[in-house]
């Protein structure tokens, strides 16, 4: 019952975001800003006070839904998700569009829902909520490019979600059990029904983790999102998927290969990329590659490394997106070929971005150093030398792009005399908080290590390890400056695996033109006859009544009916954005129904 979810022991942090989000439009100005910040802080404190255990269990039809499965692993992810919620809201607090805040709240709420889900059905519910709310963060950019890219984003996630659902249903039909359990996938392809179920679940997860060839949605959608939306998106989708992979698929060897490929793949594309935010998006793929590989290895040290890395990654990657987002906000572009020389006008933003860059590059004294090295060391200890070397190579690439290329071409490079100034105070405050976390975790890493799921001793600051990192990084820097001419950006886009669906869809459209004609003429007409005609008819009747009534004295009522008839027409708008809104509303209704339903 409701009382169970709102008792003192366990307050579901999602509930703050999902219920709190509903009231955002009721407030204005400073009160609204204070309210949003208050809700996100409450969600964070709900996580702090949360004891381990199982809470929020509901019977729904024949299934047992568990909303609150709390252990060390779910708690550490909930910590970083709620911290990121606070930072993201501060960064976006000036945004006037309530819809954008609402989408962000449901997106964060969805990822917290996945984190505490104890069964696959609950996980799936929140999984889909994340996709359907985050797509609005792309659409609210309101440019034609972002509308298209949002549709593609949604299609990828709907496809991935359906594969996941197929895996869940298969798993349920085999075991009769929906609870989330460890189902590692061994080998390269499924051999029996059980491994097929694991296989489908892995695919569903790795679509959201942006593992190639299913990851093209990420560099497509993130740079197309709003300035503030991209900050949220950089943090939640892929890391929620990493969390789900740890829960269900730890130790699946296939993930080692995929993860290592991913780490290098992101680096290669980052060389070619001209848009700073798309370059960072490719580096998310590269960084998540370390995590996916670590999950595949599955040793306690590797899993600890993955969790620590996810924690730090959310902070420094969002910081980088905030820095480049500020540049986009102020100058109107994030293309490296159009930027340069901003160190005179935006020096503070440069410092925050460089802190993010040094953190992601795992420079000693920055957060990446104490987290990424744990996973890489786990590969060294497992004597998987090829993976170890490949990940070290990707580390050099990370520094090359995020630590050197992005700051160099935005703040130095060719001075293009762009008029700019520092971003609004709230954006800067969010970047200061992010920077403090990045430096703070690099020095005081013990509290983070205490949150990790396994108790394994690891000391990042050994003399050799520190020296090894410094050598790799500083000699990468030498290479950067020697080859600077070759790295000069080109104003192009890079083809990714979404070439196949994008070109394929065009070919399909051409091939199915006759079919489409039938659909349009025949099915379309039937649809119009069965659904649209009656609605339009009803609307007409309302209008007739309306005019008759207006002739009389009930002028006000007439207006109401007219409004009603207009509303009824709107239900059949044919715009997928509206349908998506209805789906989100349906999710909310479903969750509320499940929670208040008598057991």
């Amino acid at each position: 019952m409701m009382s169970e979810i709102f008792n003192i022991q366990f307050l579901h942090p999602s509930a703050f975001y999902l219920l709190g989000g509903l009231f955002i439009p009721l407030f204005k100005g400073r009160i609204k800003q204070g309210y949003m910040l208050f809700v996100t802080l409450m969600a964070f404190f709900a996580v702090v006070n949360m004891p381990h255990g199982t809470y929020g269990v509901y019977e729904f039809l024949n299934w047992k839904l568990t909303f609150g499965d709390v252990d060390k692993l779910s708690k550490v992810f909930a910590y970083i998700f709620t911290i990121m919620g606070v930072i993201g809201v501060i960064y976006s607090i000036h945004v006037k569009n309530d819809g954008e805040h609402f989408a962000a709240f449901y997106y964060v709420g969805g990822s917290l829902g996945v984190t505490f889900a104890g069964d696959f059905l609950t996980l799936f519910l929140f999984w889909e909520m994340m996709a359907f709310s985050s797509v609005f963060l792309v659409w609210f950019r309101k440019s034609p490019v972002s509308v298209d890219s949002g549709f593609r984003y949604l299609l990828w996630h709907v496809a991935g979600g359906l594969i996941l659902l197929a895996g869940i249903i298969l798993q349920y039909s085999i075991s009769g059990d929906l609870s989330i359990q460890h189902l590692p996938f061994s080998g390269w392809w499924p051999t029996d029904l059980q491994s097929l179920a694991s296989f489908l679940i892995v695919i569903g997860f790795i679509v959201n983790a942006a593992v190639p060839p299913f990851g093209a949605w990420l560099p497509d959608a993130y740079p197309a999102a709003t300035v503030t939306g991209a900050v949220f998106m950089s943090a939640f989708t892929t890391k929620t998927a990493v969390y789900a992979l740890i829960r269900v698929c730890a130790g699946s060897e296939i993930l080692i290969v995929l993860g290592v490929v991913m780490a290098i793949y992101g680096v290669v594309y980052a060389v070619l990329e001209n848009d700073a935010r798309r370059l960072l998006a490719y580096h998310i793929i590269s960084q998540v590659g370390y995590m996916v590989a670590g999950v595949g290895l599955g040793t306690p040290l590797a899993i600890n490394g993955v969790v620590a890395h996810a924690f730090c990654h959310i902070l420094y990657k969002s910081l980088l997106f905030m820095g480049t987002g500020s540049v986009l906000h102020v100058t109107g572009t994030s293309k490296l070929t159009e930027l340069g020389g901003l160190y005179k006008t935006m020096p503070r933003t440069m410092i925050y971005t460089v802190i993010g860059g040094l953190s992601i590059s795992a420079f000693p004294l920055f957060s990446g150093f104490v987290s990424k090295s744990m996973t890489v060391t786990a590969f060294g200890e497992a004597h998987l030398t090829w993976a170890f070397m490949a990940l070290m190579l990707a580390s050099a690439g990370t520094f090359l792009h995020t630590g050197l290329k992005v700051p160099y071409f935005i703040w130095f490079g060719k001075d293009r005399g762009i008029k700019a100034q520092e971003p609004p105070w709230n954006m800067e405050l969010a970047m200061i908080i992010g920077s403090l976390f990045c430096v703070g975790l690099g020095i005081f890493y013990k509290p983070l290590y205490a949150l990790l799921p396994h108790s394994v001793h690891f000391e990042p600051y050994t003399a050799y390890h520190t020296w090894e990192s410094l050598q790799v990084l500083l000699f990468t820097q030498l290479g950067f400056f020697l080859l600077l001419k070759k790295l000069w950006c080109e104003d192009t886009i890079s083809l990714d695996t979404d070439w196949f669906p994008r070109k394929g869809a065009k070919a399909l459209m051409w091939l199915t033109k006759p079919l489409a004609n039938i659909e349009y003429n025949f099915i379309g007409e039937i649809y119009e006859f069965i659904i649209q005609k009656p609605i339009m008819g009803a609307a007409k009747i309302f209008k007739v009544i309306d005019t008759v009534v207006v002739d009389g004295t009930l002028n006000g009522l007439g207006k109401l009916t007219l409004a009603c008839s207009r509303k009824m027409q709107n239900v059949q708008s044919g715009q997928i954005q509206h349908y998506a809104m209805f789906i989100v509303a349906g999710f909310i209704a479903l969750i509320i129904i499940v929670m208040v339903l008598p057991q």
Partner: protein
Amino acid sequence: MIEALRTKAAKKLAYGALILLIVVDFIIPRHEVHFFGDKIPGFWSLFGFIACVLIIIISKWIGHLGLMQDESYYDE
């Protein structure tokens, strides 16, 4: 401050730091030897430099094979 970093003296200082990195690597104690490279002084310096050069050259080469296209590529 930025201008000071662009002088010849700063450049010399940077090269000096790189040499120092390799020299000190001869005396750094090695507790965690995972493979042969960990025993060779200066191995990671060479690794970092070669990695950087390879990433840039190979990526650009792949890019110019056809991955890099004009921004209007998908519009036609």
